[in-house]
């Protein structure tokens, strides 16, 4: 038995510590600890509901749009505001742009370095690299130039952010040429995520932390001219996703096909749903609401009233097992002890079960719900990987990654429709973007999705001020510690059974952690 | 039952004029200030601010010259007399003010019936009037602190220090806002008391420089 500790887990949002017990080269037990507490909910109390839209985005600088939207939706539910259809389209497009941004950044900047050996790219043959790119159907770049850049860099002896990476690790499997392609696209991805973020900036002022989706609608007023700039950028990113991102995924996947056999997790999946259609019915969202329990491939309806947050293993002395609408958050650090309390993350449970959230949950729900585009995307991908008709294979480390990347393309295509609708609405001249309200009391929840998973904001407003505020973030679901009954959280569970080649450098565990986009 | 005579010697013409200037400036500052604060009226912000600045400078000059003049101009140091002395003496503690403060307060709170023996200005009055001077200059300072940062004045540090002292320009804005309310409240009480203590006599003299004989002479 050996304990391997990864602290800090890098290439994530925030702060995380992961501890695994390894026996015979396989993970037997795991503890995931969120190591930062900032007290957002307490800060918001007593302020105006619109202030929560701004401040609560600062929970996460990678998915601020989703927090902003969930917060605003909670306020709107509490104050009985129905936003106009124009605002719905604007919000969908902003949210979609964040998804593109986030998934691209996640795959290339955060996760790829677990699979791609940057140093090995130095030995790639340039002609072979072009041939490989063509065969894989992925876009080419000036590979020679990229290789030269890495060479200058490595020979300079100062590796900057690549210092002490897992270069030459036995679990690195890609041929040198594919490594080089991936590095070239790593650099391109930095441009693409920025381009996606520009769409948010054009509609929301800036990214991260946008300014416009206030309770009531949006402060941004589209014009045909402004929409032109958005359409242009959307097209570039969408094409890049289709012609580079997806082919890269399919080219790399076969080398890591054994990752389809572990990292399954708890088998329960939750999606609150994202991207409203004109009916505002969560079951009709582009990514619909639903849940899957015990790995059984059927969609059930989640009831938010059945959510409870446990704090037996987290550093809080506020009461346990509360529904977030009545939630309390009071910090009390004791000590780091995996047998007792070991995290700043609470343990949310739905129907007393841990729930995995994220693109895999959303795509599974959408697939089983029969959303046509999602169905065809997944089915063709399964066929391409030689596992046609076996969607259950998605419940794995590899599946989690594939689901996220396929979702990127799906959302990109949907965005094109919303932009088209918005252009038509603006041309028609009838579009409305803001509903005024003078209501000052009420309670409500905003149940939505961040790129990394299900997100809920819960607000209670009295006399125009926030009386109570709670947020249950995707990380709270996925990174949850054990609950009162000692049941592991989804990421902890997913780590069980993972092979570890080198306990000193538990790269495989890191891959599973990263697959959740924590 | 008596009103003292209100003779011109009590308020020489120059002071009557300056009192007018004070009134107009303060009213104009409060109004233009409200426009700047809340932009209630769709009038030009630049215009409102220009009025605000101009009136502030006029007020500052007016108050400063009023202080200087008080050392030169002679006026009566009692109502009901034409005997004059240097004005500044009216602003320093006088023997009639002794033990007057509390009793005056009592009188206005209906805790005593008789009015208090007083100099031209009672103790309470003096304190209130004198306080308007620092308040006005304080308002000038806070106003400049709000406006100044962009101007890159050489003396900017003088205001920057104040801003960091109160904890930011927003706090300064609030202080300036409440300062205005202090001035408004002062003016309300001031106008009321002048009215209640003999509307015609006081207002006639201070606004129109019209004399009114004392009540005894009238009977």
């Amino acid at each position, binding site marked *: 038995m050996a304990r391997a500790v990864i602290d800090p887990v890098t290439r994530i949002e925030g702060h995380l510590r992961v501890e695994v017990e390894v026996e015979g080269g396989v993970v037997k037990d795991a503890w995931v600890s969120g190591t930062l507490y900032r007290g957002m909910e307490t*800060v918001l109390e007593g302020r105006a509901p619109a202030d929560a839209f701004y401040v609560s985005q600062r929970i996460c600088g990678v998915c601020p749009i989703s927090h902003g939207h969930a917060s605003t939706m909670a306020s709107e539910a509490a104050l009985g505001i129905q936003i106009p259809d124009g605002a719905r389209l604007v919000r969908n497009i902003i949210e979609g742009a964040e998804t593109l941004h986030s998934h691209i950044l996640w795959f290339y900047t955060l996760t790829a370095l677990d699979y791609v050996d940057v140093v090995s790219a130095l030995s790639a043959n340039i002609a072979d690299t072009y041939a490989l790119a063509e065969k894989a159907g992925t876009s080419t770049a000036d590979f020679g130039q990229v290789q030269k850049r890495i060479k200058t860099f490595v020979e300079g002896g*100062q590796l900057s*952010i690549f210092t002490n990476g897992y270069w030459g690790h036995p679990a690195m499997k890609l041929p040198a040429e594919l490594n080089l392609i991936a590095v070239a696209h790593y650099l391109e991805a930095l441009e693409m995520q920025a381009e996606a973020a520009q769409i948010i900036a054009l509609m929301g002022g800036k990214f991260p932390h946008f300014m416009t989706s206030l309770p009531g609608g949006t402060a941004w007023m589209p014009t045909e001219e402004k929409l032109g700039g958005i359409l242009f950028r959307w097209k570039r990113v969408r094409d890049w996703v289709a012609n580079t991102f997806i082919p890269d995924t399919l080219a790399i996947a076969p080398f890591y096909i054994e990752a389809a056999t572990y990292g399954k997790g708890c088998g329960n999946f939750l999606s609150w749903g994202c991207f409203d259609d004109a009916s505002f019915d969560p079951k009709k969202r582009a990514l619909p609401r639903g849940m899957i329990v015990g790995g059984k491939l059927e969609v059930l309806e989640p009831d938010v009233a059945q959510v409870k947050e446990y704090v037996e293993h987290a550093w809080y002395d506020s009461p346990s097992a509360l529904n977030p609408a009545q939630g309390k958050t009071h910090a009390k650090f004791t000590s780091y002890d995996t047998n007792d309390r070991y995290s700043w993350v609470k343990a949310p449970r739905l129907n007393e079960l841990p729930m995995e959230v994220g693109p895999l949950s959303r795509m599974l729900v959408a697939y089983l719900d029969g959303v046509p585009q999602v169905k065809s995307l997944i089915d063709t991908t399964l066929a391409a990987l030689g596992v046609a008709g076996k969607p259950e294979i998605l419940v794995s480390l590899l599946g989690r990654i594939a689901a996220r990347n396929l979702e990127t393309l799906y959302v990109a295509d949907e965005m094109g429709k919303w932009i088209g609708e918005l252009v038509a609405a603006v041309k028609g001249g009838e579009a409305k973007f803001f509903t005024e309200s003078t209501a000052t009391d009420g309670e409500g929840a905003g149940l939505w999705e961040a790129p990394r998973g299900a997100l809920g904001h819960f607000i209670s407003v009295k006399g125009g001020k926030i009386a109570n505020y709670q947020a249950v973030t995707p990380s709270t679901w996925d990174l949850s510690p054990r609950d009162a009954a000692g049941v592991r959280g989804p990421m902890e569970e997913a780590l069980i059974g993972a092979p570890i080649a080198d306990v000193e450098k538990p790269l495989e565990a890191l891959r599973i952690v990263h697959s959740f986009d924590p | 039952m008596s009103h003292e005579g209100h003779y011109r010697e009590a308020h020489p013409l120059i002071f009557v004029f300056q009192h007018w200037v004070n009134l107009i400036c303060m009213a104009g500052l409060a109004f233009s200030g409200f426009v700047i604060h809340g932009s209630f009226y769709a009038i030009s912000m630049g215009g409102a601010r220009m009025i605000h600045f101009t009136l502030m400078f006029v007020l500052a000059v007016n108050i400063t010259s009023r202080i200087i003049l008080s050392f030169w101009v002679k006026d009566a140091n009692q109502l009901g007399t034409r005997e004059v002395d240097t004005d500044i003496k009216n602003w320093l503690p006088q023997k009639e003010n002794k033990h007057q403060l509390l009793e005056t307060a009592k009188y206005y709170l209906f805790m005593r019936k008789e009015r208090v023996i007083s100099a031209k200005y009672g103790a309470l009055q003096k304190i209130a009037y004198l306080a308007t001077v620092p308040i006005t200059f304080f308002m000038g300072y806070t106003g400049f602190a709000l406006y100044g940062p962009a101007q890159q004045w050489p003396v900017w540090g003088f205001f920057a220090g104040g801003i960091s002292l109160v904890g930011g320009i927003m706090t300064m804005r609030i202080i300036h806002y409440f300062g205005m309310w202090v001035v408004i409240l002062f003016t309300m009480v001031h106008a009321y008391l002048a009215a209640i203590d003999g509307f015609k006599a006081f207002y006639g003299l201070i606004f129109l420089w019209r004399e009114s004989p004392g009540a005894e002479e009238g009977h």
Partner: protein
Amino acid sequence: MAQEMREGIYDLLAARGVSRRDFLKYCGSVAAMLGLSEMAAPQIAAAVEGGAKLQPAVWLDLGLCTGCTESTAQAGNPNVADIVLDLLSINYMETIMAAAGDQAEEAKAKTIEEGGYILIVEGTVMTGEGGNTLRIAGKTGMEVLKEAASKAAAIVAVGSCAVDGGWVRANPNPAGGKGVKDVAVELGFDKVPIINLPTCPVNPEWIVAVVIDVLMLGALENLAVLNLDELGRPKLIFGQTIHDNCPRRGHFENGEFVKQFGTVEEVKQFCLYEVGCKGPQTFTNCPKVRWNRKASWCVESGAPCIGCGNLNWVDNDAPFLKRMPNVGGVRPETIGTVLGGAAAAGLLVHGVASFSSGRAKGAPVETSKAYDKKKGGDK
């Protein structure tokens, strides 16, 4: 030392096909943003010819949302890849570094040991629960900061959180958030110069500007190059209010305001003052530098500035859609009106009493001072 560091940069740029001419142009644009004249550009370029070491840097994540890192990834020219590969050797940066856990900590320890690095700090210093509201590698965030800060050549606090605690320290500050500067004495690094770059998140162009100053103008040896104000902010970036450079300023002067979101006034780009814009008291050059590679900025998108570059910005600027913050939980306008109303009511009552008691017609004046009578004096 700086000279030597500077030397390699030109080669590195040349290696990736950036011509000398492009490079000069690029220096010129940054220099222009910094308010230096284009004349300085050739001198800057001359300083980097040769070939040697990159300036080492450590990027420390404290109590953060990662928004400032995200924002840095939006830098345009140079972009983030140029910064981390060609301009600096960022040996530790949790969010994007390849290594994790022990290997990551090792890279940091080595850089600290060698000294001479720039320490970039993102996020709030977490002091709550004995510093345990943030734990990294089994230590508290404060311990980690102390280690990294004491041997740094300079500290750049990026984002409002690192500058003064940001939103985390807003009332009631449940997690004990503080700014880097606030703990410098306590943690013993008060001798190390601190450069503050507020706003939430930080604008990447400012980081680039500071980095360029360090590399090209030797700001580490001569801090005066950065022209910092009393709060440690570069004056050229934080010297003027947003209001002064706002494209909507003309409408402000004309008294043309957006009074409600979603109205035709916004289509006409009227001023946002009435819906709470904090531009008049916020000191940043957002309207000039803009955001996301100059795509837009807050006011341009129709949203009032919320003053995220102010000190203690949440307490000072919320409610964000109102002109002024609450005082003791109440609107200042309400306090003023209530005071005025109460005074008017008081005076009215007093007036009624004065008339009904006959006092208004003239009250008797005492013959001798009540006080003196009591004392038996003043015969």
